[in-house]
């Protein structure tokens, strides 16, 4: 699909879903309320609850979609994704440690900072493993191990913390949710996500060159160390800040590039921006669905994404296993 057609299409879908997100919820708010801030408390539903939630869905979705596309491009592996590879979990561990051991008393910025450090460490481990062209299975296993370790770390940290709501908090962090967020979270995450996405977009030409393998890319004058630094920094900042405000939401980075490839082709550099927009669309759509599903308690977004993403992952793995191994 030509870019001239693709970008307006994606943007249109995004705007449509953004509008739907403002209207979706257990309470129906008539349009007349939208212009009466002080007269009707339901105005707060739209502007203090749903608007920040929609903004956050777009930011987090873009961060995760772009991180997934960049990780897939670098590792030449269509199953890479910050959640699957454990980067989101290590970010959550960083945030939990900072939050529950009092670092946020120093400054509320400590929480996203710790999440980003956690994400950087996770990416670092993965890059160290993929540098020698490791097999698909080895790579996924490394991600699974990171997930287990970080998840156990979160549970341990919270069970030792003095907060009586520790068990509920573990669920919050490991299952991911956009519920009940405010503009404070948007403000906290925005600068880091924007910066991280910028770094990731700069890896485009290098990711294209990597189509020929590391030796091929280096022979084309691409600096692998610079690419690794941009990738680690970008994923660390973008995925780290996203996890800091919403917890672990997985599979967005996995699913979005697969949805975009049929439209744009498989060249990794071409997938970057569309994956960011696509990730925002996927996250917004999923968030709307969890709010409209009639259940006693709102389903956590991370759970919903896993319910869709895990079968998707399995299908891709089964379909392509002969090609991938």
């Amino acid at each position, binding site marked *: 699909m030509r870019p001239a057609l693709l970008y307006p299409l994606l943007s249109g879908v995004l705007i449509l879903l953004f509008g739907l997100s403002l209207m979706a919820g257990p309470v129906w708010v008539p349009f007349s309320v939208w212009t009466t801030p002080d007269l009707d408390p339901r105005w707060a539903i739209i502007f203090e609850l749903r608007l920040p939630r929609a903004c956050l869905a777009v930011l987090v979705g873009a961060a995760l979609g772009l991180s997934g596309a960049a990780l897939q491009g670098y590792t030449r592996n269509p199953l890479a994704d910050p959640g699957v590879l454990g980067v989101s979990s290590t970010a959550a561990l960083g945030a939990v440690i900072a939050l529950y051991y009092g670092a946020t008393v120093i400054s509320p910025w400590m929480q996203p900072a710790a999440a980003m450090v956690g994400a950087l460490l996770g990416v670092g481990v993965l890059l160290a493993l993929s540098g020698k062209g490791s097999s698909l299975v080895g790579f996924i296993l490394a991600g699974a191990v990171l997930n287990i370790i970080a998840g156990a770390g979160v549970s341990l940290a919270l069970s030792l913390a003095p907060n009586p709501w520790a068990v509920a908090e573990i669920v919050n962090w490991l299952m991911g949710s956009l519920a009940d967020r405010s503009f404070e979270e948007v403000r906290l995450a925005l600068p880091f996500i924007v910066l991280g996405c910028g770094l990731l977009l700069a890896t485009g030409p290098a990711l294209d060159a990597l*189509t020929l*393998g590391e030796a091929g890319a280096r022979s084309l*004058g691409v600096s692998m160390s610079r690419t690794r630094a941009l990738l680690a920094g970008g994923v660390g900042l973008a995925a780290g800040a996203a996890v800091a405000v919403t917890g672990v939401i997985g599979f967005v980075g996995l699913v979005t590039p697969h949805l975009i490839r049929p439209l744009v*082709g498989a*060249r990794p550099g071409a997938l970057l921006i569309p994956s960011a927009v696509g990730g925002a669309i996927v996250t917004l759509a999923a968030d709307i669905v969890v709010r409209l599903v009639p259940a006693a308690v709102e389903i956590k977004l991370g759970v919903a994404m896993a319910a869709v993403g895990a079968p998707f992952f399995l299908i891709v793995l089964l379909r392509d296993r002969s090609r991938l191994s």
Partner: protein
Amino acid sequence: MSGFSAAGLSGSDLHVDLGGRRILGGVSLNLSPGQVTVIVGPNGAGKSTLASTLAGLLKPTSGLATLDGRPLSAFPPRERARRLAVLPQTPEIAWPVTVRTLVGLGRTPFTGATGLSAADHAAVDRAMQTTGVTAFADRLVTTLSGGERARVLIARALAGEPEWLVADEPLTGLDPAHQLDAAALFRSLADRGLGVVLTLHDLTLALRLADRVVVLSQGAVLADGPPAAALTPDVLRRAFGVEAVIETTAAGPLVDVRGRL
């Protein structure tokens, strides 16, 4: 060291240690453009290592690899990439892209984030024409045969319009017909002024294709010169441990391996 000249691709006293082992021990050679130089030798002799070092992808433990008198490591990577194209041994194509996209990757040392310019596209078209793959331009590389894919990869290397092409075992795995096509292509490229450096396993092809043969054995140069002078039965005996005879046939010289020592 004899005849060290400033122009051309050279290695002087190259020593390369990898994984605790000495792979190359004191290799010196000067290669001129407009020629096909073929490096042969048994497995483990260091052919790939020598090719990578001459291509600037591997830094020698001691010694110097230079291009026109300037050390390869002193070149900014993009400038080196513009002048010297490399075809690595096991070519990887990670994604199912179109032929045109793949060949376009050869323009990476020239482009930035803005993508391919009109000049870049023109160079891509020329490269595809030289290698005869223009007909597949919009097909996915995954739908091509082995021989077609080999030509596309050569087109990618040519898209940058380099002065030098270093290819490590480019004919391995190709059908005989495709091997001949590729060999003819390398010949024509050298005739146009490109400096072509290949490593090959097939001794007969080396004999017929090369303007110059370098025989490596256990990390050292055993012979270096025109094919008839470098690939003698005596050299073959010492390098490969086989008894062989060079026969002349209607198609050209033929290396006939008679038996082991």
